[in-house]
């Protein structure tokens, strides 16, 4: 177990910088999720920590050692790959014992550790099988087991659940959470799935084009997203974000309506973000946003209304109560709940 420090970490390929300086302290036992869309550099970042990618600038330390120039095997880490990377010619037992054998651990100790991991992951019946005779979920557990038995300083997981079907993914997610609580391992977890990110993480790194837009707890990321990108990426359905013009404390909506909003700059344009679940239906005579519904998706407990702001073609998603009678063509008035308004700079995308 160890803490990990990333200090102004950068990565360039052929002069092209893809990771633009990431600094973060991960404390001992913390579960940190790196989340972002594909191509944002999240896997590259993890692979740099693992030692599978070189570091162009900055430092990584694991424990109290700077590991920049150490080979992966010298870094005392274990990794779970997206495709599991199980050795196809070895049995489950051999797969798990491989790293321990290399470490020249006594056979009795190897057997004990493998047995313990197999019990924890419910893999005992499969120990003598080859990976090809296992299901996707079982393979995933073997990959976890192979990492667990090493008892490393840090645990790195690269999209470990993306090759599983939806139901299994939920199960494994819970299992990973439970494992982490039991072992207390420092963990770095890469995913593009915001549900995994929100449910697993102690802290999130939201990556956008090689920049860590926000490093914070899931609650903070959701409540006060640091940038328009983070706001749009975290939360489902996605936040409604559109441009309004500020005029003396009043926002002029795309449809020309005027809406008093707190915290607006004196003039100029701003990007206004409103989460569907943060808006409530109000009477037409209060300050509100008129929305003309294009369609309603009824999901049971609640419903989602998709429409446009009246007089414009700016799309709005609304969360409606499950007993709603709203239908296509209806005109609804919505207002944002107190304190649930997000304003972003149109130039930098940063929170205002």
């Amino acid at each position, binding site marked *: 177990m160890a803490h990990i420090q990333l200090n102004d970490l950068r990565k360039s390929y052929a002069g092209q910088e893809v990771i633009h300086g990431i600094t973060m302290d991960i404390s001992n036992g913390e579960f940190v999720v790196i989340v972002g869309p594909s191509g944002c550099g999240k896997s590259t970042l993890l692979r740099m920590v693992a030692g*599978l990618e070189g570091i162009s600038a900055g430092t990584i330390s694991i424990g109290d050692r700077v590991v920049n120039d150490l080979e992966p*095997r010298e870094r005392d880490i274990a990794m779970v*790959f997206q495709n599991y*990377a199980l050795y*196809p*010619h070895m049995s489950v037992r051999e797969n798990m014992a*491989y790293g321990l054998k*290399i470490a020249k651990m006594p056979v009795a100790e190897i057997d004990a550790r493998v047995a313990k991991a197999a019990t924890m992951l419910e893999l005992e019946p499969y120990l003598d099988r080859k990976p090809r005779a296992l299901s996707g979920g079982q393979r995933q557990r073997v990959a976890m087991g192979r990492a667990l038995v090493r008892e490393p300083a840090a645990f790195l997981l690269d999209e470990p659940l993306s090759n599983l079907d939806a139901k299994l993914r939920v199960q494994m997610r819970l299992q990973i959470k439970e494992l982490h609580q039991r072992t207390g391992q420092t963990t770095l977890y890469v995913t593009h799935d915001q549900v995994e990110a929100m449910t697993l993480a102690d802290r999130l790194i939201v990556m956008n084009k090689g920049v860590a837009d926000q490093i914070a707890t899931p609650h903070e990321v959701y409540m006060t997203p640091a940038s328009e990108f983070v706001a749009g990426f975290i939360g489902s359905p996605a936040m409604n974000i559109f441009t309004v013009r500020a005029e003396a404390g009043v926002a002029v909506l795309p449809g020309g309506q005027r809406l008093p909003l707190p915290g607006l700059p004196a003039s100029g344009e701003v990007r206004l973000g409103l989460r569907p679940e943060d808006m409530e239906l109000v009477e037409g005579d209060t300050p509100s946003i008129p929305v003309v519904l294009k369609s309603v998706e009824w999901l049971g407990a609640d419903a989602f209304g998709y429409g446009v702001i009246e007089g414009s073609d700016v799309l709005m998603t609304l969360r409606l109560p499950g007993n709603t009678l709203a239908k296509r063509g209806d005109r609804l008035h919505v207002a944002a709940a107190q304190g649930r308004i997000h304003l972003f700079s149109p130039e930098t995308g940063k929170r205002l």
Partner: protein
Amino acid sequence: MRRTVFPHKLLPWLLLAPQLAITLIFFYWPAAQAFRQSVLREDPFGLSSQFVGLANFRKVLNDPAYLNAAQVTVVFSVLVAFFAMTIALFLAVQVEKIVRGKGLYRTLMIWPYAVAPAIAGMLWLFMFNPSFGTLAWPLRQLGINWNPLLDGEQAMALVVAAATWKQISYNFLFFVAGLQAIPKSLLEAAAIDGATKRRAFWTIVFPLLTPTTFFLLVVNTVYALFDTFGIIHAVTSGGPGKSTETLVYKVYNDGFVNLIMGDSAAQSVILMVIVISLTAFQFRFIEKRVHYG
């Protein structure tokens, strides 16, 4: 498995016909001829022949020259197959590490395969002939008494080198393909598990290459047994003495040079049995150790 159903009964046969014709004319018919001739003995003028049962086989198997050829063949084949495969594997692994110009190296490596065996043999002869060989003189300067025309072991080394050189390309190609088929993530996983490059090679890469290696073992054995005729013919003609006369070369020598058709045919049949049983053995026993991914 998808099955294609032809609407016509005749069409599949027509499509197969060219290949079947080639196999029938160039394999089954000569093989049948060899079987027939192996139990016949011709008179010196080739005007008549009589049935002699297994007498040709008995004669051949009791011939010390034949046993010598068998021994030469074993030494030659084992050396060629071993060196052609190990050197090719080494080069294939090395070429993976090249960052720039990988394609160029690969292309250059594959060229020798395009050279006909007899030409390859001449090439090595021109380099190592004791009287006019380009490299023979430097070898002698190094204090080596280089004379493959008199020294059987040197002659053997020369034909083994020529035959190996020619086969490396083929093996290289398959090993490169085999190496590329191994997922990079397995090696990364091994690196994280603490394996050094060397250890990862022997515990991960090599076992996963076994299907390729096994296939090449079969192909190389057959190559060393049969396809090297041209090289031996061009470089040493089986000499000096009979020190590089392999079984195939002896079949040719006895049949087409000495014109003892019965003996030659009997040898062909024995050779056929050897190759069939060797390949069967390889599939039966060695394939068990092969890991198909």
